């Protein structure tokens, strides 16, 4: 803006502040409804590392060898973790404590994700206002602030990498576009740092390092490439790769894995294109053509050699140089065929259609409109938004989890659409002289229209109206829109405009209501505590997980090894502080397969396996008493599949055709339960009611039987000590 506009600036700042507050507070339902506690599984690991960090310091964390997990292998934490989130929370903790604000590290961790969601909304504003207009930016920020898909991963307590990584992602894009728009070296440096933070935070950085090259190639192909693209992209490739390589978990992957080759290739293309342009300026036409011929021949020769080398390198690797997880994205059937452990995680399944509506709601409708809007006035930023949207849609279709990447893209595009639609409608109304509370618009052109936010809800409509004002020229509103849309414009009929206006505001309101509802009901449960409403309006709390973990923590030897299915590994180390055999960092499939095999084997065989792993306690999660459907019996086939993937003696077919009950696992779940009998998850009476354990001993069962902890006996009970079961008696009688 040529001159400083206090009204517009202040109003914008105020709206952004409100949006940030909303983004933060909409994520606090989990604390209000439940409690300030770390959620789910992975966050417990991050929490545990953060605790270590705050106690021992940053350097010790790099060197931390964790012997409490993957017994007897252990895990090098510093080299296998994306430290962005942990460093962020750790730094916040240190700063707060330096200021004598004695927050517990858990509180810091719980509120990290909502805080960064607010920052993400600001970044989204920056991105879209760079790509399009301030109005669209505000609309996008408001939508990102409450998009359910993002809320699902960033409610208070969801202390997961995604909590900061989505902010980092949007921030990289913002600084990238800002660099391209301004051509400023300062922004290029900021862009580099944002990229570094992104690499620190999440494995999803490979999305960034592939999307940006695609965008640059698109710019080259469409002839819009300038030196500013180079300024934005080249540091990212050279310095960014160096920085990425200095993160231990990425290391040499940043030059050796196929995920990064696209960036290198694009970098070469970018150099070639710029060189071409430079040379074309220097040489006369004929000489230029000759030079091109020469260069193309040479480049083809060198290129052939390089391509051969790269292809040779890539083909040598069984996954063609891609990591398993990336390959899963490129070939959605890959995981189900080769990596059952990736396929076994529900968030790695393709999403269902309803989940798009649940997670994105109005953005599903508006995002395609936003793409059309972007094409209407295609500049550098708009092209980027379109590409971001399209690639993110693809990835979200592969894995539910990556819906998270789509969410900001869809919201940014939706912001563009909302802005354009409201613009058209408001200008039409004004052209008809309709009486609307749009004082600023009535002034026409200039700085205006900020006040029109009063007409809409939140930031979005007002922002859209402002766009109309800001783009204004002297030619009245038709001129305003023509300049925005870049074509001739005729106002809509008044009734259509009013109906459309009401419709859009209604859509945005229903979006807001939907988001709040989903946040409050669907995504706030910490999953370690369950609630059921009681008749008097209060809630009955099922707190079995923590009950059992607390029992383990206090009543077993600190060096005890505990076995369970890998889902509970992180929680066991964090809450019970005991050594586990496998955990959620599923890096060693054969180790997990060993546990799966034990769970699927008969008691005596399982006992041998567990003894060989020094296991003293085994626990299973059993939901049959209260109808908790996420229990281990429902995961049991995955244990068989994963176990069978390594140990051929475990055959999935056996468990399908004969009986799931042949394994140890069923025994542990059902021991003593037969007397009650009815399994409320699966809706049948348990067939085997006479389980008598010979090699294991019930050590603890939580109040609602959800966690059943068994002690592995030093030596099995002798047969005589075991009361004969009815079936055995029958068999003995038959034999006699």
């Amino acid at each position, binding site marked *: 803006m040529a001159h400083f506009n206090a009204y517009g600036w202040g109003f914008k700042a105020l709206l952004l502040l409100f949006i940030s507050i909303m983004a933060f507070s909409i994520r606090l339902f989990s604390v209000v409804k439940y*409690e300030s506690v770390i959620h789910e599984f992975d966050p417990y690991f991050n929490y545990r590392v953060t605790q270590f960090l705050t106690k021992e310091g940053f350097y010790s964390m790099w060197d931390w060898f964790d012997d409490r997990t993957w017994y007897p292998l252990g895990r090098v934490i510093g080299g296998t973790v994306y430290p962005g989130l942990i460093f962020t929370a750790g730094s916040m903790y240190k700063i707060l404590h330096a200021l004598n604000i*004695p927050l517990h590290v858990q509180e810091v961790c719980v509120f990290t994700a909502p805080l960064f969601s607010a920052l993400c909304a600001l970044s989204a504003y920056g991105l879209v206002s760079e790509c399009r207009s301030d109005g669209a930016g505000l609309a996008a920020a408001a939508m990102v602030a409450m998009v359910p898909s993002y809320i699902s991963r960033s409610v208070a307590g969801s202390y997961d990498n995604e909590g900061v990584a989505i902010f980092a992602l949007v921030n990289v894009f913002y600084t990238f576009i800002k660099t391209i728009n301004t051509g400023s070296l300062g922004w290029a440096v900021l862009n580099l740092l944002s990229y570094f933070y992104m690499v620190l935070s999440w494995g999803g950085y490979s999305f960034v390092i592939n999307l940006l090259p695609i965008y640059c190639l698109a710019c080259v192909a469409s002839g819009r490439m300038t030196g500013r693209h180079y300024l934005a992209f080249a540091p990212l490739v050279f310095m960014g790769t160096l920085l990425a390589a200095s993160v231990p978990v990425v290391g040499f992957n940043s030059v050796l894995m196929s995920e990064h080759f696209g960036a290198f290739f694009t970098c070469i293309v970018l150099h070639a294109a710029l060189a071409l342009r430079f040379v074309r300026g220097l040489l006369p036409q004929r000489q230029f053509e000759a030079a091109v011929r020469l260069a193309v021949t040479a480049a083809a020769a060198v290129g052939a050699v390089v391509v051969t080398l790269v292809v040779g390198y890539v083909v040598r690797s069984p996954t063609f140089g891609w990591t398993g997880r990336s390959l899963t994205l490129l070939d959605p059937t890959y995981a189900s065929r080769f990596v059952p452990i990736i396929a076994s995680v529900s968030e790695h399944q393709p999403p269902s259609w309803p989940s798009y509506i649940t997670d994105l709601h109005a953005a599903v409708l508006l995002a395609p409109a936003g793409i059309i809007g972007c094409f209407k006035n295609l500049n550098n930023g708009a092209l980027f938004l379109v590409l971001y949207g399209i690639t993110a849609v693809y990835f979200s279709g592969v894995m539910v989890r990556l819906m998270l990447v789509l969410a900001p893209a869809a919201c940014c595009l939706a912001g563009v659409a909302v802005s354009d639609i409201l613009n058209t409608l408001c200008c039409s109304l004004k052209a008809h002289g309709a009486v609307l509370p749009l004082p600023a618009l009535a002034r026409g052109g200039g700085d205006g229209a900020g006040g029109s936010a009063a007409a809409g809800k939140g930031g979005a409509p007002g922002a859209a109206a402002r766009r109309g004002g800001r783009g204004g020229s002297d030619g009245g509103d038709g001129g305003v829109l023509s300049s925005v849309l870049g074509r001739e414009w005729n106002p809509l009929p008044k009734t259509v405009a009013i109906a459309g206006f009401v419709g859009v505001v209604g859509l945005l309101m229903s979006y807001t209501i939907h988001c709040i509802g989903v946040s409050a009901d669907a995504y706030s449960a910490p999953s370690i505590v369950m609630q059921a409403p009681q008749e008097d309006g209060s809630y009955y709390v099922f*707190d079995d997980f923590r009950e059992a973990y*607390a*029992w383990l923590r*206090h009543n077993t030897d600190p060096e005890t090894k505990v076995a369970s299915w890998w889902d509970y590994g992180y929680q066991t180390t964090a809450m019970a502080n005991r050594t586990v055999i496998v955990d959620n960092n599923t890096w060693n499939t054969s180790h997990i397969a060993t546990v799966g095999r034990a769970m699927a084997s008969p008691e005596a065989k399982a006992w041998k396996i567990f003894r060989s792993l020094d296991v003293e306690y085994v626990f299973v999660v059993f939901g049959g008493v209260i109808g908790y459907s996420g229990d281990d019996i429902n995961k049991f086939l995955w244990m068989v599949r994963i176990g069978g993937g390594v140990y051929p003696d475990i055959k999935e077919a056996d468990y399908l055709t004969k009986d799931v009950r042949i394994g140890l696992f069923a025994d542990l779940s059902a021991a003593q339960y037969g007397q009650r009998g009815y399994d409320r998850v699966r809706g049948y009476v348990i067939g085997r009611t006479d389980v008598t354990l010979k090699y294991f001993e*019930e*050590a603890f069962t939580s109040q609602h039987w959800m966690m059943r902890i068994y002690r592995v006996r030093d030596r099995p009970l002798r047969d005589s000590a075991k009361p004969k079961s009815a079936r055995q008696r029958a068999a003995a009688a038959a034999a006699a």
Partner: protein
Amino acid sequence: MRRAVAVFALLALAAAVADAQPAKIKKAERKISLKSQVVKLNDVIEFVGVAGESSLLFCWPRRLAERAARIKVAVGKDDRFDAAPAAAPLGAPADAACFSAPVPIKKGEAKSVEVSASFTGVMKPNPAKVAQGEKQYVEYEDTLWLLSPYPIEAQSTTITLPDEATSFSPSEGASSTSSKVAWGKLGKAAAWESKPLKVHFHHDKPFKKVTKLVREIEVSHWGNIYVEESYEIINAGAEHKGAFSRLRHAQQGGAGNSFQMLRARLPPSAHSLYYRDLIGNISSSNTRRSAKETVVDLSLRYPLMGGWKTDFVLGYSLPLEGFLFGRPKGRSRLILDASSPIDDVVIEELETRVVLPEGAANIEFDSPFEVEAGWDKKFTYLDTAGRPVLVLRKSNLTPLHNKPFSVDYTFGTTALLREPLLLIGVFAALFAAAAVYSRCEFTISKDDRWQEARTREKAAATLQRLSELWDAEAEALARAAAAAESLTDAGGAEAAAARQAAEAELRALDAKAKPLIEALEAVSAKAAASARAHADAGKALQQRVLKLLGEKGEPAKKGAARALADARAEWAGATAALCD
């Protein structure tokens, strides 16, 4: 001191022996209650002393004495005091631990002395381990007669039990009912005569033992006292062995020696309660409020079978009213209960940390029992120098210890305002810094736009000052012209004077304008050129005015003056235009 007492006691004893009429116990009644996990002992002794004897010695086996949580001695009805440990006199058995209490007595006079004591952790489970659902049996060992340096003439011993005794010894002379074992007439005993007493019985009460309790009491004079109590609790009864069946536990309703519930009685005004542990809220507790107290039923995460342990944190806030009292000379007195608000627990180690507001001084405390005091510092919200922390440590406490204790300290109003002032100061500094920052120029490279804006700014400022000068010049001209008009021909001298004055004034103004125009030249040639042209126009006007002053002849003057006025107005208008 103790040694002196002991020596004195020894001397007294020796004197008594020499006197051949030694001190003796005429009659002793011994009552031991084993109903809870705390052993409560009550000895009523009729003591016949010798003249000058100033203390009564009483002893227990060391095993018991070490676990004594509280020993009180009462002489007659009203005199109550603590007993001090004393060295065992000569002739005592090796394992006797003695205490002395000052009992003033006359020769041959009998005085009734009541010794009451509580012991924790002296009942041994036997068998030491029980399976789930089995009953818990414990064993208590003591001496049948008082372990005493004095001969005893008559004694009775009664033990109250929660359930019938399964066995006891010695069996002679004993009578046993459903909850009592009594040795009614024990007859005479010599000094130090000792006979072991042993009772084995079913004890169904859980042995709730807090192994460590840290209470942090944080006082804020802004209206709140925060209390946070961290418990580590264990079931100190017979250990659980074998499997734990949830089914059986549910069916039997937690029979045996297990427990899951604790009851805390907080002051009625307690609010903002929380009950949690390391991994979050413990989602099962109940609070009832009455006029007398707030009852909190705490359910532990899991039932504590024998030997199982757990920990938790109970926190609450109290208002200042009723707990913090103003005292003369700017002093405040904090009065709170000294121990845990939880019923029926024994506490092995108690650490009370009283965090007083930053700036509290001259801290004194008064405890109902002997404590080990220390000091610490705590930094919390908005602290700069740290809050003084009074740390009180005591081990082996029973519910009887829960008496009020008080802390007195000086705390002024200025100290109270320190934190808000700090906040105000920090924010003011922040705003000031922002204000200064926004007025500073940190540009390293000055790009064209910046340069342009800066030039325009400078030129505008110079022009502004020039225009002020020119306005003054216009005024001076107007005055001179008016003078010229009003002067008659005759006043030649007057006219000359006026002319001189006007000339001087205008020259001064020109001198001031000249460097300004030069400065303008440096900034913007264009602006300088127009300013110079304007100044030249002004000069021409000056000439005309001065000429007018020298002119003779009314009519010519009149016309010239009118023309001059127009020119002047035009020039002034040009000034205004130039500055815009």
